[in-house]
């Protein structure tokens, strides 16, 4: 189903990019150097992912689309979010490139293989982007940006694989697995409860009619039909 207005999505994605600075650089909870690091990483990854998605799409389809560019940028923003406070700017470029190409692969290929219902590519961009970002954090996290591990004497210990700490990649796998299990089980339980209480889906009639009219009694656009 094609989007009804890529223009709206385009503006929305640009606003997401800008707002994401508050999301990541604000997570330092202070106007600190770490906030600067997260700010720069956020921007670099978004840009690199837009390039990554665009190039992958160009190579496969012979064209780079606007929808692809913004989807890539959002995928990069999602992917850099777990890593923003721990990696160098050059690492964030690599994370962005990988995330952009990887999410394009999920949306363009894997979705067709499995045939799941994901009209907004929420899973392809957010689920896949978040997962690849969390795993890449374990690779690119460095103690030179954010010394998080210390031994008993207070010496700084290596953070991620680039520092030589392979165990962090395992930690990240565990974290992703916990997030997936919690999300799947939690979502399933709550959906079941809501379904039993009031029902989840609109009726087929209402779905054809559109949710604007059936749920809210209004329409998004009233086009004046000209006489001609």
């Amino acid at each position, binding site marked *: 189903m094609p989007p009804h*207005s890529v223009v709206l999505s385009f503006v929305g994605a640009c606003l997401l990019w800008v707002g994401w600075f*508050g999301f990541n650089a604000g997570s330092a909870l202070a106007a600190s150097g770490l906030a600067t690091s997260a700010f720069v990483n956020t921007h670099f990854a978004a840009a690199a992912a837009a390039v990554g998605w665009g190039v992958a799409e160009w190579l496969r389809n012979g064209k780079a689309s606007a929808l692809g560019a913004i989807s890539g940028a959002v995928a990069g923003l999602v992917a850099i979010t777990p890593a923003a406070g721990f990696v160098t700017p050059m690492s964030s470029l690599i994370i962005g490139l990988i995330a952009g190409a990887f999410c394009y692969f999920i949306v363009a290929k894997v979705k067709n293989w499995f045939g799941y219902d*994901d009209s907004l590519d929420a*899973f392809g961009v957010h689920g896949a982007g978040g997962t690849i970002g969390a795993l890449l954090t374990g690779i690119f996290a460095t103690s030179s940006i954010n010394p998080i591990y210390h031994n008993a004497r207070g010496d700084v210990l290596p953070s991620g694989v680039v520092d030589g700490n392979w165990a962090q990649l395992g930690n990240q796998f565990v974290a992703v697995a916990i997030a997936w299990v919690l999300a799947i089980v939690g979502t399933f339980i709550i959906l079941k409860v809501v379904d039993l209480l*009031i029902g989840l889906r*609109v009726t087929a009639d209402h779905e054809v009619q559109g949710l604007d009219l059936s749920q809210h009694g209004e329409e998004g656009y009233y086009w004046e039909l000209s006489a001609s």
Partner: protein
Amino acid sequence: MKRRFPRGKLRALFLCLILLASGCHLTAQSSPATPADRIAQLELQVKNAQSSADNAWMLVSAALVLLMTGPGLALFYGGLVRKKNVLATMLQSFAMMALITVIWAIVGYSLSFGAGNSFIGGLHNVFLHGVGLRPDTDYAATIPAQTFMVYQLMFAIITPALITGAFAERMKFSAMLLFMMLSQFGLCRWYGCTRYFRRVGAGLRHIPGTPSRISQGTNAPS
């Protein structure tokens, strides 16, 4: 005949004013008499300066995170759906701005960040009781607790707003609201977990966003 103001009186008045002004000046300057007092005052001023800087950035950040939901996600998702569902999709994001804020103020913040166990907070901060303008040193030592509260609120808004993308175009509005209220209570456990997870692994810092992103995928086939 010219009436002259007596020059002597004028001079005396002027002198008094100068003395008064300099007196005030002197008392203001010399109030912390001992070096220890002066250092204490200086420390307080430095602390206030850092708090002001951090608070300014955190308030701007909170507004930016709301911008992600407000126009950002609403437009992004709104454009991707079919024409007949644009308002319903945009309203799903906007409804989160309203609904989650009210829940957050009444009980959500307390369940997420109030004192409790590793998995869920308590009811000590319901109705934002005790969440004032002094920093909460458990979370952020340099910004008012209310800044921290409102910043986290913006995350609590965008998390469910992101999920709405998974069931756009087919979920009842009432069911969506109920789902979000229930998952707000489910996800706040996750916020509570972050303190525990920070000890386990570093990459988990931004973990509150992760379940939402991944749950979108699991919602999608429903």
